[in-house]
């Protein structure tokens, strides 16, 4: 160690991993024997490989002395090659003269392992970055790509980070469509249930959309970039539907999902984080700082344009960043509308945005966030999830699986005003006249009730610390025992460590949907179905003041 500051310390402290090396599951290739007959080129490759192989599984920073000894090279030689490697980012050097494998090695390793897969997932602009942060390698399939389930063995740290600091989530597997043309507004108006004529430029509108029968297809956010230019993000592929609906209008619908890196930055510190990372001092930095709820603005990162919206799926202060990517191949006309042809988008700027966000001086208050933590906070936020809380009518096989926006709690987003003639409107009005039979509600099971359910087993409530559950649970009317009729179902459930209650998103008949009414949820308690009393409460379960707060420049504003 070349640390001059602590002269009193002559003994070199070694990382624990050196004292008790994890049994290497790969052979050790660090020791090299140079063949004097071999040409210098070969020998120099051998030296280089020896140095790269000096780092064993689980080891991070190593002192030069240790590396040189392992490879069997003189220190000056090792030093010279390591520094050359550092210029390629295969190796990274520290200020105090230690080294570890660098980010180019991560990328190389990532590509090498992907190259061996029989059917690799589609990479998002951030996949390699997320893998480099994952302590658990726990991913789930998401639209042909993968999303981290959680970065640790458990999701809790990420949950608390997004609730108390900020979480950074790759949402690039979402689909994104752009509507461009003089009649773009008419096209989105035909599709969405909201009255998009009221959507100003740089405004975002959350909306639902339906099929001809008035059944819910999807829900998503619409961004208006210009009078004649909209973007709509969706959970499922929708180009055909959108194009069909645009029939006869002077508009073109582009599928731009692959060429836009999408990143959610959520939590009470998200604004501070963006103020640090998005080119402070640039003209657009102020606009981001003052961005209102469900508004968008242009911003810059390292001189590169991106678009920021104050939106998200966490029910807290939060932003989504949309960064358009260039094409790798030169010669192909760039720009999202035309796409990259057969070429690939260049992910590098997205990756450096990710690194900048996660290496800010807010330290560990900012964490990468996985889908399990997201599921937890979106339940707290009372946000409905497609194919969990409702089926899209595009693949609801049975009649009873369909839902209308009214049944899914999205009735407010269907504006039956003059001129807002969206697909499915006629059927929806008919249904409204008949009366909505079932509704989407929030149910709370409080602590004493959980204790009561577990007491016969001599246990404290066991739902604590568990990831959110998507196991459907039957609902029975209050006063009935388990043989009573099932009147509805819970579709998402989570014990909130913040609210100290079991939260459930559920569908119940309208007569049970009033705030304050009680129903019974059939929860699995120690392998038995137990009925727990639950109260209908107003959604969202959790809404911190900063979620919709107005920010002025220079105001802290964080909770």
């Amino acid at each position, binding site marked *: 160690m070349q640390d001059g500051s602590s002269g009193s310390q002559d003994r070199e402290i070694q*990382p624990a991993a050196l004292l008790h090396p994890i049994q290497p599951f790969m052979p050790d290739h660090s020791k090299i024997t140079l063949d004097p007959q071999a040409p210098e080129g070969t020998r120099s490759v051998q030296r280089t490989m020896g140095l790269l192989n000096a780092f064993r599984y689980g080891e991070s920073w190593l002192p030069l002395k240790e590396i040189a000894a392992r490879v069997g090279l003189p220190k000056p030689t090792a030093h010279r090659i390591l520094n050359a490697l550092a210029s390629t980012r295969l190796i990274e050097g520290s200020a105090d003269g230690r080294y570890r494998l660098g980010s180019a090695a991560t990328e190389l390793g990532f590509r090498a392992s992907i190259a061996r897969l029989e059917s690799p997932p589609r990479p998002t602009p951030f996949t390699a970055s997320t893998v480099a942060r994952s302590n658990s390698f726990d991913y789930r399939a998401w639209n042909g790509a993968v999303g981290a389930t959680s970065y640790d063995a458990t999701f809790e740290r990420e949950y608390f980070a997004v609730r108390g600091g900020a979480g950074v989530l790759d949402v690039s597997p979402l689909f994104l469509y752009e509507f461009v043309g003089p009649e773009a507004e008419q096209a989105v108006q035909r599709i969405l249930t909201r009255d998009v004529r009221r959507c100003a430029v740089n405004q975002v509108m959350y909306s639902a959309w339906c099929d001809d029968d008035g059944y819910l297809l999807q829900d998503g956010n619409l961004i208006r970039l210009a009078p004649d230019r909209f973007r709509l993000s969706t959970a499922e592929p929708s180009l055909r539907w959108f194009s069909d609906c645009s029939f006869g209008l002077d508009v073109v619908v582009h599928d731009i999902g692959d060429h836009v890196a999408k990143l959610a930055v959520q939590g009470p510190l998200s604004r501070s984080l963006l103020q640090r990372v998005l080119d402070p001092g640039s003209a657009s930095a102020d606009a981001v700082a003052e961005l209102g709820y469900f508004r968008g603005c242009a911003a810059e990162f390292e001189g590169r344009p991106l678009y920021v919206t104050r939106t998200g799926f966490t029910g807290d202060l939060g932003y989504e960043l949309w960064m358009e990517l260039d094409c790798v191949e030169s010669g192909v006309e760039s720009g999202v509308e035309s796409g990259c042809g057969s070429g690939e988008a260049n992910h590098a700027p997205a990756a450096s945005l990710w690194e900048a966000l996660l290496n800010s001086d*807010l330290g*560990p208050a900012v964490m990468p966030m996985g889908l399990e933590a997201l599921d937890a906070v979106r339940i707290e936020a009372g946000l409905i999830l497609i194919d969990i809380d409702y089926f899209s009518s595009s693949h609801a096989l049975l009649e009873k699986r369909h839902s209308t926006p009214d049944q899914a709690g999205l009735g407010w987003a269907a504006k039956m005003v003059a001129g807002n003639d969206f697909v499915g409107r006629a059927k929806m009005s008919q249904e409204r006249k008949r009366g909505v039979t079932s509704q989407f509600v929030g149910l709370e099971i409080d602590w004493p009730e959980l204790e009561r359910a577990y007491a016969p087993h001599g246990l404290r409530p066991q739902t604590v610390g568990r990831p959110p559950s998507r196991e459907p649970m039957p609902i029975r009317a209050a006063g009935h025992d388990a043989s009573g009729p099932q009147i509805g179902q819970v579709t998402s459930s989570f014990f909130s460590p*913040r609210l100290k209650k079991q939260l459930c998103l559920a569908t119940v008949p309208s007569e049970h949907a009033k705030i304050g009414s009680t129903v019974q949820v059939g929860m699995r308690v120690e392998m038995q179905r137990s009925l727990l009393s639950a109260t209908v409460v107003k959604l969202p379960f959790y809404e911190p003041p900063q979620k919709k707060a107005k920010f002025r420049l220079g105001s802290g504003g964080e909770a």
Partner: protein
Amino acid sequence: MSRYDAVVIGAGHNGLINAAYLSRGGLRVAVVERNDRVGGATRSEEVFPGFHFSVFSYLVSLLRPEVIHDLELVRHGLDLVPLESTLNPLGGGDELYREADPMRTFWNVARHSRRDAEALLEYKTEMTALGRLAHRLQDLVAADVTSTALDGADEAASADVAATLADIARYYAGTPEHQLSLLYEMFTSSADHFLRRWFETDALRAALATSSIIGSWTSPRTPGSAYVLLHHYIGEVDGVYRGWGFQRGGTGEVAEILARAARAHGAEILLEASVEKVAVKRSESGSTVTGVVLSDGREIEAPVVVSSLAPQLTFSRFLSEGDAPAEVFTAASQWNSRGSSGKVNLALDELPSFACRPEPGAHLAGGFSIAPSVDYVESAYDEAKFGSYSRTPFVDGIIPSVIDPQMAPTGKHVLSCFVQYADYELKNGDWDQSREAFGDAVMKVLIEHIPNLEHCVVGKQVLTPLDIERIAGIPGGNIFHGELRLSQIFANRPAPWASDYATPIAGYYVCGSSCHPGGGISGGPGRLAALRILGEKAGSFVGAVS
């Protein structure tokens, strides 16, 4: 002169909880607090500009879920973040690291001993089961099982005790024999001996045994220390017997939240109102409380007075001779609350970097503990026990600013160190003279394991047992208001004649950490005492509340 239905002495968390419950029960309540802020041993303070500290207690786990629910603490701002891990640096770059995921911990421990790694899984299960058994006692009023039950003179009281005992018996019926025997062992054995049943790795026994000495004049090899271990396993975050939680804003925020809850129910909190005397009317049939007298001469009348302080204050100081039987004063003077702990709060201008784990990582969001071997802790005890302090002390630390960045300016940090041992009664000199040397001893140990503390400390607050006494008002500075040992728990806390929170003086009650179920930010005493008082008003005895 003002009048209330009840006056609560002390706005520590127990006093506040007691007041909140009493107000919720319909009484007009005033809390009188000597300091200029609420919290007592649960307070936060901006000690250096921009650096906020949980001055004394630093983690929350014992807080009863019932209290959280009944007083709607979440609505008032409760926000506990679980502490996920504990790092024990062992010196020479070695470490013992326990993480949230039991199987990660398994492999970390397996580096030292594969056997112990498995034993740790078993141990956790066993302790959870034992915690579950002991948990029941936490929610019971500790009826005086020593005297009243035996003489039978007071039929109603005997029936109460009988009911409590029957309730306990019912609860424990069917407990596997080996668990009862373990429980018995916990009450009597030393922590080290108890842990030897499972573990061969000395460092692991030391790491686990630290829970047996916190706040106590015991060492891992002192008989009876295993009980303190159990006391810590009763703690829970949301019913999970493991977790220690960190309140955003520091533990002082817990007190502020409780104060909000109490006020929401109508309680008044009077700050800078120090009680001098408890006013008592004597008569043939015994003494009755009539109110309190403050040091500035103000008098407050109330038919109910509840003290959250230690017996030396509640009885010896606030009462006059003749107000109560002589045995009350004798017992109070014998109450053992000799402090054994200190605290060092550091302001840092960079993240601590551990010799064994120099890089920043998840471990910084957890706790750390300097107790590399059982001998280390045992000799720290030996160094202090004859009226001194440890030259190489045991340190239990957390870095609150990693969990809650608002505790320190951006990029800077606060480090909280709980330290043992430090004898309240110094043989040579006094604590005002020895404070600095004590702080230096702590720094030396810290720097050995966290070398960058040598140059990154920008502020240092050293708190001795004397400071705990002065600031929090705990006589002797014992963090639990009195040793948690067999002689001072359950019906003996603070004494058999006050174990059910009612003292021999009619209308005078106790509700602080010196009562059952004891110290720590649990709210147990405050809550149970309030239920007892309200029950008495309603004409029923609340023995087995749960």
